[in-house]
């Protein structure tokens, strides 16, 4: 590829240098066209939800329900902003300084090896799920096989050192919770990755492919990629935050307490809570510690599901990989997370 041409038209759909399993196939335009439709639909949904809330409380901004909704929306977006910025910064630097295909060359060729390696390498990104989505999207763009990039996407927020240390601190009496969390997170991520190598569904990042940047332009490419990724992911973050805020105001958390004692329902309840709350994986251990009416097994499910599937994260994934992909990926991740947590809890807790 000509570096000059690349600099002139940074947003061409051209990609090369893929060495792994099929990452995207078919007409390059199809994926690109598939993007905007769910975006418009989802934006519409939020607009409708928001308007309903405002209309429903005719006093508008003075009403407690509206204020509570606004507080939670601002809380989620503000809390996520530094992590999202970290993620898009890493994404921008990857796009500018790492040649397409470089990571794919580092990974073992056999997917059964590449996936666990990708899962373990998730331990080096010290962020939460808001950082890992743009980074994983960029990894796909840089030619990392889809299954490996997705394993990284799921593993990074679940097993990185910051999260594991936070879990140790949150459960001072029971250090095995942190161990179990690491095991269940890695297991769930690798399982999803291995399933993905089998199904070989095409994955494409909706982010524009950034060609290898010419030397003099690298910082500019890094800046523009970071800004663009922020606009993209940030929009979806707000969408997810708005949905999570709506769910929190509409479905009171006290509704969950009724099922705390039931072995099956309590697991289901905490899995649902993890999806609805959409809290950062660096803080969810403290929340889990507070859910003392639930069993450790149910709380491990909460800790394993949260970093992999939640409302805010699903919105981010739709933005990065598309709605059709997320409709398959999120349920698979949820299933894998719950199963892994139950399995590990049996052995460790």
């Amino acid at each position: 590829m000509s570096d000059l041409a690349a600099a002139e038209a940074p947003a061409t759909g051209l990609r090369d240098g893929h060495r792994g399993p099929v990452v995207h196939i078919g007409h390059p335009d199809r994926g690109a066209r598939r993007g905007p439709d769910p975006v418009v639909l989802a934006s519409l949904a939020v607009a409708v939800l928001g308007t309903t809330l405002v209309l429903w409380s005719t006093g508008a901004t003075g009403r407690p329900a509206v204020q509570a909704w606004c507080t939670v929306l601002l809380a989620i977006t503000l809390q996520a902003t530094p992590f999202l910025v970290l993620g898009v910064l890493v994404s921008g630097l990857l796009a500018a300084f790492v040649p397409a295909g470089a990571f794919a060359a580092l990974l073992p060729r056999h997917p059964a090896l590449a996936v666990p390696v990708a899962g373990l390498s998730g331990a080096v990104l010290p962020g939460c799920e808001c950082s890992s989505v743009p980074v994983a999207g960029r990894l796909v763009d840089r030619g990392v096989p889809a299954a490996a990039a997705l394993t990284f996407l799921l593993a990074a927020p679940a097993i990185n050192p910051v999260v594991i240390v936070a879990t140790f601190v949150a459960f001072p009496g029971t250090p095995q919770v942190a161990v179990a969390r690491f095991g269940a997170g890695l297991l769930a991520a690798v399982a999803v990755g291995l399933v993905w190598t089998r199904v070989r569904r095409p994955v494409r990042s909706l982010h524009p492919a950034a060609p290898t940047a010419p030397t003099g332009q690298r910082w500019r490419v890094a800046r523009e990629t970071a800004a663009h990724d922020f606009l993209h992911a940030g929009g979806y973050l707000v969408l997810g935050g708005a949905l999570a805020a709506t769910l929190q105001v509409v479905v009171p958390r006290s509704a969950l307490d009724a099922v705390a004692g039931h072995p099956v329902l309590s697991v289901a309840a905490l899995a649902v809570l993890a999806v609805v709350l959409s809290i950062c994986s660096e803080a969810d251990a403290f929340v889990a510690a507070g859910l003392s009416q639930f069993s450790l097994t149910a709380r491990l499910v909460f800790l394993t599901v949260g970093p992999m599937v939640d409302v805010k994260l699903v919105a981010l994934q739709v933005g990065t990989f598309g709605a059709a992909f997320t409709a398959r990926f999120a349920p698979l991740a949820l299933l894998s997370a719950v199963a892994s947590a139950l399995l590990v809890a049996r052995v460790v807790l």
Partner: protein
Amino acid sequence: MRALGPLLVLLTGVVTLRLALTGAYTSYVRVGMLWALVASGALLTYLGLAGLWRLRAQPQDQGDHGHAGDHGHERAPRVALLLLLPLVVAYVVAPPSLGAYSARLSGGAALAGERTGYAPLPTGEDGVADADLSDTVRRALYDDAATLDGTRVRVVGFVVPTAEPPGGAAAAGRPRVLLTRFVIRCCAADGTPAQVDVALPPGAAAPAADQWLEVVMTYAGDGPREAAPRSTAESARPVPPPADPYET
């Protein structure tokens, strides 16, 4: 509208910086997030300015020719317009920290606590100990050594009106409120209320929901563990909302 993207990034950066530097952010996230917010706000501001600067420097280059589709770097994706939502909310609604409405939604979820390891509460010259509301609740519910019993503590929280009608033998003539403070681990989205069921001094007017009070009170002793611990107040005065409305 190629300027839309950089403008949105710039606006988000400026508003993040402003919320951080004015201290308004403490209504939504932990105080410790200050420097992370300042750093990310500054970086976004820089990215936005750099993008605008480049448009100024090269006004009509490479905009619409070539293969740049609607996913190109040159145009903001439509979903990015949603970034305006929190910015508008921050300025138009400027929502307060979590209050009585959210406390009622949370139900009576009890705080978790240890059974041991509570240092004695140091009392000041007036014989009253300043305490966090959440610490007070934990001591009342869990402390095996009963360090709270008989101690006069001064706590600050906001009012959640009690559901049940006033009255009861012990609390005759004393209006009762749930004095509340949210405990957050990360941001307001994970807030859990710490609540003490306080019998205010006799004859006091029942304060409105969300009114912040500074209360000097004494724990009334063993109650049911699942409910808010009961206390009797010797004084209660309205105070402005504290700079950090949450406890951690």
